[in-house]
């Protein structure tokens, strides 16, 4: 006796969260059954393995049919075939688009192209996430990217509107799209200590301050050719950053800046001597020079991509090697950026603030073990 056909269709579509998770994780039906057995479901319910097999198959089939709709979540809301309560719909969408930390760290900042997709089996092997799940997550990133790529307005809002995500998930996806678009390098060994959360935090700050949309130019220039304002960094702004070089090139300015910072921080900083030493021009780990140079280099696409590498090399690592506590880093950065306002000879105050406010936030987030 073999079962040729075995289906269950409810007027309200039954969603088993546990099976949904297994399906999303890319397990085959037999693996899923084995995992459910191991979880002790047979003992809890008194069911047989055959019942479990049939149930799992049925859920998998349902999910498979729902997947097409999940690719465009508004469709899931308006379709008539599956009657699903709104809370369940939200759960289906949220879980489908959820991603693994390990996976996102692998592809963050990479171009969402066929080439990357080919590497997914390596990622799968490395992270222990099934290839199927990797593919789903990758395709999700790519799908969201494609939809919002050409859109005006807030990145996170666009994503939320078209994919019906929660706030949190929409912001995460905004970061992923932003990183993919700007191709920031995140895979270097020295960046491995950073979590997706760290990058997402920086991305949000950068989207808020460094993109075209951030300047609020949209309403005044509705027909401007720059459409994807939240995705691309403000090119003009990056060009202007070269002007900041004067802060290290002009010796008077540098000395004045240094003395102002030192005066303000004397006695407050546990690592004062190290800080002071770092201001000296010949010092290889000159913090100020590092930060300004990072800014100046952002004209080139290549250097934009290396932004996080540079920040870690030029700032995080030196401070860490001198064992700066986080509080001191904060004090220093605050003082460092604020005192520029007192430099009479420096004319790019607004530019400096736009650069340094974001950078300070990023650096503080990046500064940990």
């Amino acid at each position, binding site marked *: 006796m073999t079962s040729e056909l*075995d289906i269950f269709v409810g007027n309200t579509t039954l969603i088993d969260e546990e099976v949904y998770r297994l399906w999303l994780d890319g397990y085959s039906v037999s693996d899923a059954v084995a995992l459910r057995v191991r979880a002790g479901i047979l003992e809890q319910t008194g069911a047989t393995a055959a019942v479990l097999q049939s149930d799992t198959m049925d859920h998998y089939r349902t999910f498979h049919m729902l997947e097409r709709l999940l690719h465009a979540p508004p469709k899931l809301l308006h379709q008539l075939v599956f009657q699903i309560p709104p809370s369940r719909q939200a759960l289906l969408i949220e879980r489908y688009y959820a991603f693994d930390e390990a996976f996102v760290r692998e592809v963050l900042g990479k171009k969402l192209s066929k080439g990357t997709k080919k590497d997914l089996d390596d990622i799968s092997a490395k992270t222990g996430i099934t290839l199927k799940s990797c593919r789903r997550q990758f395709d999700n990133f790519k799908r969201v990217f494609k939809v919002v790529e050409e859109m005006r307005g807030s990145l996170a809002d666009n994503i939320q509107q078209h994919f019906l995500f929660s706030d949190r998930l929409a912001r995460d996806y905004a970061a992923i799209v932003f990183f993919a678009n700007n191709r920031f390098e995140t895979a270097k060994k020295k960046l491995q200590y950073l979590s997706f959360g760290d990058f997402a935090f920086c991305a949000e700050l950068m989207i808020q301050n460094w993109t075209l949309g951030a300047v609020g130019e949209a309403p005044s220039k509705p027909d401007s050719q720059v459409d994807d304002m939240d995705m691309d960094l403000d090119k003009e702004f990056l060009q202007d950053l070269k002007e900041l070089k004067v802060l290290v090139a002009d010796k008077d300015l540098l000395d004045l800046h240094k003395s102002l910072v030192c005066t303000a921080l004397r006695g407050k900083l546990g690592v004062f001597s190290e800080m002071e030493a770092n201001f000296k021009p010949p010092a290889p780990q000159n913090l100020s020079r590092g930060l300004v140079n990072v800014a100046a280099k952002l004209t080139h696409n290549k250097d934009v991509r290396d932004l996080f590498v540079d920040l870690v090399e030029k700032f995080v690592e030196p401070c860490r090697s001198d064992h700066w506590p986080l509080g001191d880093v904060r004090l220093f950065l605050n003082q460092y950026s604020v005192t520029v306002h007192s430099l009479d000879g420096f004319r790019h105050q607004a530019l400096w603030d736009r650069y340094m406010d974001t950078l300070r936030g990023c650096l503080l987030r990046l500064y940990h073990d």
Partner: protein
Amino acid sequence: MPGKLKVKIVAGRHLPVMDRASDLTDAFVEVKFGNTTFKTDVYLKSLNPQWNSEWFKFEVDDEDLQDEPLQITVLDHDTYSANDAIGKVYIDIDPLLYSEAATVISGWFPIYDTIHGIRGEINVVVKVDLFNDLNRFRQSSCGVKFFCTTSIPKCYRAVIIHGFVEELVVNEDPEYQWIDRIRTPRASNEARQRLISLMSGELQRKIGLKVLEMRGNAVVGYLQCFDLEGESGLVVRAIGTACTLDKLSSPAAFLPACNSPSKEMKELPFNEDPNPNTHSSGPSTPLKNQTYSFSPSKSYSRQSSSSDTDLSLTPKTGMGSGSAGKEGGPFKALLRQQTQSALEQREFPFFTLTAFPPGFLVHVGGVVSARSVKLLDRIHNPDEPETRDAWWAEIRQEIKSHAKALGCHAVVGYSESTSICEEVCILSASGTAAVLNPRFLQDGTVEGCLEQRIEENLPAGCGFCHIPYDELNMPFPAHLTYCYNCRKQKVPDVLFTTIDLPTDATVVGKGCLIQARLCRLKKKAQAEANATAISNLLPFMEYEVHTQLMNKLKLKGMNALFGLRIQITVGENMLMGLASATAVYLAALPMPGGIQIAGKTPSDGSYEQHISHMQKKISDTIAKNKELYEINPPEISEEIIGSPIPEPKQRSRLLRSQSESSDEVTELDLSHGKKDAFVLEIDDTDAMEDVHSLLTDVPPPSGFYSCNTEIMPGINNWTSEIQMFTSVRVIRLSSLNLTNQALNKNFNDLCENLLKSLYFKLRSMIPCCLCHVNFTVSLPEDELIQVTVTAVAITFDKNQALQTTKTHIEKSLQRASTDNEELLQFPLELCSDSLPSHPFPPAKEHLESARSNSGIPAAQRATSVDYSSFADRCSSWIELIKLKAQTIRRGSIKTTVTVEKASPMGEGNFRNRSAPPCANSTVGVVKMTPLSFIPGAKITKYLGIINMFFIRETTSLREEGGVSGFLHAFIAEVFAMVRAHVAALGGNAVVSYIMKQCVFMENPNKNQAQCLINVSGDAVIFVRESELEVISTQQPTANCQQSCAGGEVTT
């Protein structure tokens, strides 16, 4: 030109991409009705076109309005080649043809294609302007309401229940026409869908005409079926019960009791009849079409031996009141005579109803069934479907004579079905023989004098169990005892019926689903030889099915079956029998004896041991089941039996004389009943297998109950969560092990596993009950068995079971007492001392002390309960004394008071509950249920019948996920289309939903599959009770005048 149909095409959405180049679609719509077609403009390059068309107007006969479906086709415009069809929507406009149903159909309909399934949605608005046509010779029957529900629909009351209506129409099946060889599968499927739609329209119109002839205005329990006879054609047939229904002015005037078809009927004044139709001649109108031509069918036809009483009358199957002449007295004879005269004028006194207004069902005889094997021949003249008519007439005649043999003049819970394999067809009909109260069957001329006396006469909750046939001349051997409830009349030891449990029946504990399953191999044969082989097998199958049912019933420790449905399916090389029923313990019937096993050779020691082991197992199972289903009937000690039944003095002379006569025989009969144990003889291995299979049925996991009736006896605190589902399984038998035993085991496992899967899937709803579990078996191919199950899972509140009923009673108690206070202000015949005699307090105690004895129905209808029946039903001697003391202390009321008291209470109800049926919060969600009600909600309006037929075919089976993927998607789509139609009618639920057919064929080698599904139900609007309460508390001070005004508004 009696009608104008207006259609507007608003918009489309989610259309498929029809032009690969642009990834877009240039869609337009064709609207067709009859032979007239309109087109919208082409909406270029969009998947969400906004046509916003003008109103397309069709001027049509109302005959066409009833027959024709509105056909909407969405197409993709193509400049160079033929336009591609995207899909179609068929809309049945019938609901717009009666005044009380829907007024407009407006909403999003799935665009359906028989090859691709649902492809987007279209927004359509449909209206009908009807002109009055007073032509007496008209062919249309607009205005006759149709209900699938097999009880009187909730917002109506039955003025007259006229009786059986039937009709069938035949046609050639487009699938088998020569043209089918050259047309595409799509064209062929669409031709079929359209034809069936037309035929059901025609059928409904013709049935409507018959109803009008009978002076009725509605068909209740309407059941329409298709017989796909292959080469020989397509038969669409329908049966139903013609009624004259009266809309209740306030939908809120109903008790929350979910199971009562319409308890309030009693409380409403019966004589007022606003419907002019009903005053005229009523039931006696002879039906023109009911004189059938009994032209002998040319084909081979052989009656199955179901006429053998042993089978069709279910041996030992219980029946009702004994010795009509003796106990009934002159009054009863009068009743009988009247009913008979009312019924005898009908050719077939059949009723498709399964639940009845209180007082309608007097006695139940037992199940009657008839089967007949026919050879199909081509239907030569579709306009004269004589052969098929004659076949059915023959079977109905047989049913009628079976009922007569049981001393019954009517058949209730009647249904018909067919099973077809190649050119052999088994026709089956079954029902429950019954004696009915004439008051619903004719005009209320005599009812005035009879009505109250009947109530006096019939003790609540057991009357229907009393045998209707003559004790001395029983149609079959049965053990009769005196009713355990009233002790006045005879009851059988077991009772099998096809109806739902009457609401006033007294049940002990809970019920459960019982199934008998059976397979029999049969040689492949052709034509007559095949028919003979089947006919020869049928009696054995029926006998075995019956034995299995009996054994399983005993094993559960119960004594009655309700909703019994025996399905015999014929296949190429086997016959399958599946019987489902809900077993209960009726308090009126004797306690079932156990099952005893007898071996053949008592000499063999080990064998003996084995037998005793089995015996122990069986006894254990019975004990376990009794505990599981809470069956602890009141122990009846000899003391009680011996002592005379305490009799309140005010009982009528008539009754007293009866009870005197009953006392004499009591001892004898009861002892007889107690001794009765069912003996199973194990004389060969087959019998051994049977015993084993008895024990393999696993009870549902804790927290689950199941039944195939509307509701589960013993559960009444339903919460609002419901989940309707359909589950289909097909197994392939390996041809090697095809023996009867292996087959039986396979089939048994299939059903058991299916049930287990359902329990597992629905475990999140625990505690819950699977209600209306409906199994259908078909044998699509040689080695395939298909089982389709549709049921609804309803949650209930386990903990509040007792409390809610108590509070319910307390509530009604309060209400009743306020009524009493009101009454006191008027000088009614109710003297002051009769006030405390209100039967509620004892009712409450009764419930608390003996909860096993579910006196809830009795308590609910407390106003009509008299003390004598109460005392009789009480569970112990002590309890009896207590009650009796109360009775004496408090005096008593006459039952005649009931009527007077009832009407103010009805008004009280009315006042408290009248609320406009507005605010339906659950927008978008459409509930579906096979039941006639929605727990925790009130149905405020019936919008019309839903009757849909779909075909789905694929030539890319693998790509669609194999057979499971294909059928899963199709069934989900069918649900979606039903929901969309209901929503467009303005409804939020389908009740009495049924999947009548699910024919699945596959050809995996060709990567093809085809499936036909036919579903029906009643579209309704319901309002949650909680919402109603909110509304009613907002206007607590409403006085009677206001409420009357409110009532008018709501209609």
